[in-house]
C-alpha cells in the first residue's frame, strides 16, 4: 500500500495541473496563496511526507474539484452506490456463471455447452460501455421496463447490475467450466461413480465443491473487472459512485481525488486478495489443516 501511495504520488506530480479553475485570470500572488492553501508550495519531499502521514490517518487531502471537500468524505459519500451495484453485479455474475459453467461442463460437447460457451465469450467480447448503452436504450427507453438512468430505488440498480455482471459472468462461467471438466475427469469422481452415486449426487457432492474452491482465486481479478466496469457503467447510468467520480477526476485532473480513489482501489484489491487467501484456507481443507498442523 505504501508503495502504491508513493508511486501514485510521484506519478501525479509529473502531471501538469493545479487546483485552479481559472488560473488564467489570476495574478501570481493570488496563485501563490492558493497553492499555499493546498500545501503545493512546499518542496516535493515535504509534500510527500505530509501526504503519506496524512494518508495513514485516513486523510487524503482536499479535492481540487470540490472546494473544501475532503477526499475521504467524497469517497465515503460515493462508495455506497458503487458497493451496492458492485456487489449485486458480482453476485449475479458469479452465480449465473457458476450455473452456466457447470451446466456446460456436465453437458460437455452438447448444444447446451455450445450455447453457454458462446454466451460467455460474448460476455467477454462486448465492451461494457456498448453493452450498457444497449441495455439502456432497449430496456430503459424502448421498453420502458427500468429507469433509463439515475439513482434511487432497487429498480434503478437493475440495468447497471446486469451491465456490470457481464464480465464476472463470462469469467466465472469459463473458469468453472474448465475446472469442472478437469474435476469430472479425476479419479475421485470415477470412484464416486463406482460407488453408485447418481449423476446428480456426483455433481453436487463432489464435482461442484471441488471445482468451486479454485474459483476463489479469480475473485481478485473479478474485483478488478468490477472496478473497471463500474467506471463505465456508473457514468452511463449516472450513478453517484466511485467509478464515476474517478473518471471525472481524471478528466479534470483532480489529483487528490485520483490518488485517494487509487489508494482506495488498491486497498480494496489488497483486502480482496487477503480475504481470498483466508477464505481459500478456510474452504480448502488441504490448506486449512496443513496450516494448523505445522
Amino acid at each position, binding site marked *: 500500500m505504501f*508503495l*502504491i501511495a508513493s*508511486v*501514485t504520488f510521484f*506519478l*501525479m506530480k*509529473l*502531471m501538469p495541473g493545479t487546483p485552479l479553475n481559472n488560473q488564467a485570470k489570476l495574478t501570481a500572488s493570488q496563485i501563490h496563496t492558493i497553492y499555499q492553501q493546498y500545501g503545493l508550495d512546499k518542496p516535493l519531499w515535504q509534500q510527500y511526507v505530509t501526504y503519506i502521514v496524512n494518508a495513514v490517518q485516513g486523510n487524503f487531502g482536499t479535492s481540487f474539484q470540490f472546494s473544501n471537500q475532503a477526499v475521504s468524505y467524497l469517497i465515503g459519500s460515493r462508495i455506497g452506490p458503487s458497493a451496492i451495484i458492485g456487489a449485486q453485479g458480482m453476485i449475479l455474475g458469479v452465480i449465473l456463471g457458476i450455473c452456466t459453467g457447470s451446466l456446460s461442463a456436465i453437458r460437455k460437447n452438447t448444444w447446451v455447452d455450445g450455447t453457454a460457451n*458462446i454466451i460467455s*465469450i*460474448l460476455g*467477454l*467480447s*462486448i*465492451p*461494457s*460501455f*456498448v453493452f450498457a*448503452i444497449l441495455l439502456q*436504450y432497449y430496456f430503459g*427507453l424502448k421498453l420502458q421496463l427500468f429507469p433509463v438512468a439515475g439513482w434511487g430505488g432497487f429498480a434503478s440498480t437493475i440495468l447497471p447490475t446486469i451491465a456490470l455482471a457481464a464480465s464476472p459472468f463470462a469469467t466465472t462461467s469459463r473458469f468453472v467450466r474448465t475446472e469442472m471438466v478437469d474435476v469430472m*475427469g479425476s479419479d475421485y469422481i470415477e470412484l464416486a461413480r463406482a460407488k453408485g452415486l447418481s449423476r446428480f449426487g456426483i455433481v453436487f457432492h463432489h464435482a461442484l465443491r471441488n471445482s468451486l474452491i479454485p474459483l476463489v482465486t479469480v475473485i*481478485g481479478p473479478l474485483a*478488478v473487472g468490477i*472496478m*473497471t466496469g463500474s*467506471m*463505465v457503467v456508473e457514468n452511463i447510468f449516472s450513478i453517484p459512485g466511485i467509478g464515476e467520480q*474517478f*473518471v471525472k477526476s*481524471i*478528466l479534470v*485532473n483532480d489529483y487528490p481525488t*485520483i490518488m485517494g*480513489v*487509487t489508494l482506495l*482501489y*488498491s486497498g480494496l*484489491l*489488497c483486502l480482496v*486478495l487477503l480475504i481470498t487467501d483466508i477464505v481459500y484456507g478456510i474452504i480448502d481443507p488441504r490448506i486449512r489443516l496443513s496450516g494448523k498442523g505445522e
Partner: protein
Amino acid sequence: MDEKIKLPEDAFQPVGKDDKLDDEKIAAPSRTFLQDAWHRLKENKAAFISMWILIIIALFAFTSPITAPNPNSANPDYANLPPKIPGVNINGFNGTSIQGGQRVDQYKANNVPESKHFILGTDYLGRSLGQRILHGTMISLLIGLFATLIDLLIGVGYGIISAWKGGVVDLVMQRIIEIMQSIPNIVIMVLLLLVIKGGILPIILAIAINEWTTMARLTRAQTLQLKSQEYVLAAQTLGESSGKIAMKHLLPNLSSVIIIQTMFTIPAAIFFEAFLSYIGIGIQAPIASLGTLINDGQRNFQFLPFQMWYPAIVLAIIMIAFNILADGLRDAFDPRTSRH
C-alpha cells in the same frame, strides 16, 4: 472333437528369428508435436473457422492502406450519411434514415451526387465509415500485436528468469509481481496515460504493462515444471549452460503456453484500448481504432445506430474469434485431449 480345419503342411515351420524380430521399426509417418497440434486444431471446426476469419480480417485490415487510402479525408458536406449499397433497397442499406420521425433519403437531402455512396455510411466529418473501420481494425490489431509482443518479451523473460534462478531472486521477483497485481492495473494505466498522453506507443506500453504479469506468472509456473523435468536435468548433467537450456529446452516447450496466452492477450489489448477510448484517454484523432470508432458511434446511437454497430460488430467478431481460437489451441496443445 477333431480338427475341423486342415492346416497347411508348413504351418508349423518355425519362423527365422532374425528376419521377424526386426520389431523396432516404426510404421507411422513421423509427426512433430506441432504437426499433431495442427491436426487436432483442424478437427476443431469452430477454432479452425475462427482462425480463417481472423486471417481474412487481418488481410482486409492490413491491406487497408491500399484498398482504403483515405480514412481521414473529411468532407463535412457528407457527414453522418447512413449506409447505402446501390441496388439494395432495404431500410438500413438504402441511404435513408429516420429524422424527426420521418424516413428521409439522406443522400438526396445532402445533395450527394447519384454516383457517390458509402457502403457503411459516413461519420460526423463525412469520412467513409467503411474505410475508417478497415483502418481502425488495422490499428487495433497493431496495438494488440505490439502490446502482446512487448508483453511477451517482458513476461516470458521475467518468468523464465524468476523460475530458473529460484531462491531469493524468485522471491523478490514474485513479490514485485504481487505488488503489481495488487494495484488495480486500470488505474496505473490511466495514470500512465495521463503522464505520457498521446499516440499509439504509450497506449501499447500501458497495455503491455497491464498484461505482462499474467504472462510472467504463466511462464514461471510452466518453467518451474519444466525445470524439474528430467530432460532439463539431463542437459545440466551434460554441462549445458543456462542460456542454452533456456533456448533449447525451455522455450520450445513453453511455446504452447505462450501461444495460447498470446491469443488471449491480443484481444484483451484490443479490448482495453476500446475501454481507454471510452474513458477519453484513448488514441489520438484522427487515427481511428475500433475503440475510438465505437466510442464515437455510441454517442449517437439513438439516431445513427450504424456508427456504433459496425465497428462494435467487427470488434466482437475479432474478440470471439480470438477466444475460440485460443480455446481451440489450448485443446490442440493439450495431449490429454488428443483422444476425444
